[in-house]
């Protein structure tokens, strides 16, 4: 018998032929498929960092849903795109503050709801605003409406917003943001009082055409929209949590706009693919190093001040933000009332002073713990702080926590130092709200308690004189810093890249106002 089994039954040639055939078969449809996902000239493709399962503004959990709500609903006023915080008329053709607690408005006569729910009326405005403050709605956004009492309907399209007391954030948060969205009374009531994951009636320049959970939301032009025609026929919104993935998708030409990581800013400064542009917007976020005033290890004010002076903010920013973020002067970002021109303690470290303060404190062999989020930016900062404190003889232990555990740290009485970052709406009251005595152990993790601060927070929200308001919030931040519990670090930045075919319309903090996006 001829033993030829070691000769390849699948000969080399056949093997290669087979592999080639398989490869060719897999590539055959590529040309046609390539066209299937190639950019459509009428479709804008943008990235957001999370999915938007909720179409009810009363239950919206933040900016991700608001990007969609702002396109499919109308408000009396909307944020004006640009570099300065300002608003412009939207559904209102007139709005006027007639006295500190009364705001008159008149609606445009060309806005209607889809699905046969008729023209937008003052009744819809009354319903939309009052349901936010109603206990029955259980809206987590109720505080944004502040001291809203009710809305008086004075005509089919006219009404008056009535407040229990003056409320400055009405113009910066309540009306142009989440709670300002006007929903159809008849459609919402027909849905049982709560809108779910599908909108029941839309009125904006776009309607939601489809939602594929965790994949994308598609908006298309509202055929009944009578206002200025939006530039794009369709908008595809992709929920992509990971910034690196979003950057790859942008570089591959599959996204027209995305926020990018601060670590990639330098790369995009040098070159944005396909003739795109990098926009570097400031941000409203605020990042700080906090110290728990209730913790036995941090009772000594001199020790806290030593820590404040030992932290070199520019070095932190260089290490963690690659120089793309500026030092902050408090919790209130530039462009808002109350933004300070400088900190009480310079951003640069003063090691001599820090050592002197530590010596004055009488504390020796200090070992303290710092809690932080498990994101590279914060763990990097934590390590740099660790080395800075080591220079003055303080040993720092770092606890890295995942987001769920980290955001529950308020109740952790053993919390010592914390590297923290809060989001913000464009009004200073939104920032100070978390540091009142009432919030101690909830969101005021430093347990900072100061009667003057509490009073400023309460009074400044009612103050309509911008200069007085500005001075009040500046004083509030001075009090925070004087307590020794805070070392303000940065407001971060919002770097955004966009393709050459898009003219983005962004809020001053870089968030997209999709309905105003143009074509290049």
């Amino acid at each position, binding site marked *: 018998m001829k033993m030829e089994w070691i000769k390849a039954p699948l000969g080399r040639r056949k093997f290669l032929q087979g592999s080639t055939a398989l490869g060719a078969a897999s590539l055959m449809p590529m040309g046609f498929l390539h066209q299937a996902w190639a950019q459509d000239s009428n479709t804008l493709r943008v990235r957001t960092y999370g999915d938007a399962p909720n179409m009810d503004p009363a239950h919206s959990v933040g900016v991700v849903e608001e990007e969609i709500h702002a396109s499919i609903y109308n408000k009396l006023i909307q944020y004006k795109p640009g570099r300065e915080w300002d608003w412009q008329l939207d559904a209102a053709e007139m709005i006027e503050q007639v006295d500190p607690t009364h705001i008159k408005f008149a609606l445009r006569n060309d806005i209607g709801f889809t699905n046969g729910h008729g023209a937008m009326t003052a009744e819809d405005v009354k319903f939309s605003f009052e349901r936010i403050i109603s206990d029955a709605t259980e809206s*987590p956004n109720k505080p944004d409406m502040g001291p809203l009492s009710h809305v008086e309907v004075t005509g089919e399209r006219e009404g008056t917003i009535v407040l229990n007391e003056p409320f400055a954030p009405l113009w910066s948060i309540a009306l142009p943001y989440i709670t300002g969205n006007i929903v159809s009374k008849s459609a919402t009531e027909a849905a049982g009082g709560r809108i779910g994951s599908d909108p029941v009636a839309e009125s904006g320049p776009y309607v939601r055409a489809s939602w594929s959970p965790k994949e994308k939301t598609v908006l298309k032009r509202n055929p009944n929209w009578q206002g200025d025609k939006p530039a794009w026929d369709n908008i595809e919104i*992709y929920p992509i949590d990971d910034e690196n993935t979003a950057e790859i998708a942008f570089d591959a030409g599959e996204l027209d706009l995305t926020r990018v990581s601060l670590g990639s800013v330098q790369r995009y400064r040098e070159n944005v693919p396909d003739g795109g542009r990098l926009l570097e917007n400031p941000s409203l976020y605020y990042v700080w190093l906090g110290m728990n005033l209730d913790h036995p290890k941090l009772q000594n004010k001199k020790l806290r001040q030593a820590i404040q002076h030992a932290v070199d903010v520019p070095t932190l920013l260089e290490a963690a933000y690659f120089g793309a973020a500026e030092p902050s002067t408090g919790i209130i970002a530039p462009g808002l009332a109350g933004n300070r021109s400088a900190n009480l303690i310079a951003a640069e470290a003063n090691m001599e002073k820090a050592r002197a303060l530590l010596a004055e404190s009488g504390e020796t062999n200090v070992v303290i713990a710092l809690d932080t989020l498990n994101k590279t930016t914060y763990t990097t900062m934590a390590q740099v702080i660790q080395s800075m404190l080591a220079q003055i003889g303080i040993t720092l232990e770092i606890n890295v926590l995942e987001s769920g555990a980290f955001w529950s740290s308020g109740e952790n009485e053993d919390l010592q130092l914390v590297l923290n970052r809060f989001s913000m709406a464009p009004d200073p009251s939104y920032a100070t709200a978390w540091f009142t005595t009432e919030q101690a152990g909830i969101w005021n993790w430093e347990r900072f308690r100061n009667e003057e601060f509490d009073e400023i927070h309460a009074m400044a929200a009612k103050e309509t004189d911008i200069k007085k308001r500005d001075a009040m919030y500046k004083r509030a931040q001075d009090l925070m810093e004087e307590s020794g519990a805070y070392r303000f670090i940065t407001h971060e930045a919002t770097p955004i890249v966009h393709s050459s075919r898009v003219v983005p319309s962004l809020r001053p903090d870089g968030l997209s106002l999709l309905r105003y996006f143009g074509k290049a």
Partner: protein
Amino acid sequence: MITYTIRRLALAALILFVAVTAMFLMIRAVPGDPVKIMLGPRATPELQASLTAALGLDQPIWKQLMIFYSKMMQGDLGVDVFSGRSVTHIVMQQLPYTLELIFASIIWSALLGVIFGAYAAANPNTLWDRMIAFISVSFIAAPAFVIALLSLLVFAVQLRWFPAIGVGEGFWSRVHHVALPAFAIGLSWVGYIARLVRASMLEVLGEHHIRTARAFGLSERRIIMVYALRIAILPVITVIGVGMGFLLSAAVFAEIVFARPGLGKLVIDSITTRNYPVVMGAVLVSTGLFVLSTAISDIVNAWLDPRSRQSL
């Protein structure tokens, strides 16, 4: 065979029960108040109390577990806290994307792995055999996330042959979208399967019935394709069953890197937001999938090779 099948399915049910119970307890042991995380900072204490009661979180854990199982037996996995949608619906919406990814990975890796393994076994100690061994070990050693990123940079960014994100619409578009993630998570399996098939095939090729077949003058192609490969491929079936579990976990990162919807991403997002009902629904289904696939592979194996029935 029937007794074996019943026993194997009973074991699968027991494993599922233990795994789901463990997950139920573990998610509650993780620090972080789910209600606060779900509702965000603006929620009033009244609203927090209301949601706590609605989720049954004010009950003792054993009671929460009882309620979960009693509802599960009625096919009710609860509702998503954020959207109010049925968890069953949410999970079933995501499941096809994960299955699509896993099956695409298994199919291409098994196909290529078997071809490589069979070819290497048919040509032992030749240059081709060594090359295939080298390639197989390289595939096994290459971390899937590195492959994913490299393949994205080369095939999506540089060449723009494949899409970087999403799942596509329509059959061909979906195939096109699944190609890169399936390539990334299936590559190491090509290596495993190739090595497994080669070893198994060499063993089979040395057995008496193969020698008899040769003595009867059957062609080498027929011997390998019909008589040897059919037996040599048996371990692959078992490995694929277990591989489902590994591919499920690999799918998690593939879904994140390629921005695809799917069970893995659903679980991660839900754990981060402490959305307990969705976590449990997704874990139940993914664990069920794993347990079922290993059970099926064991049963098929037992059917093909009666000796393995004695192991249970």
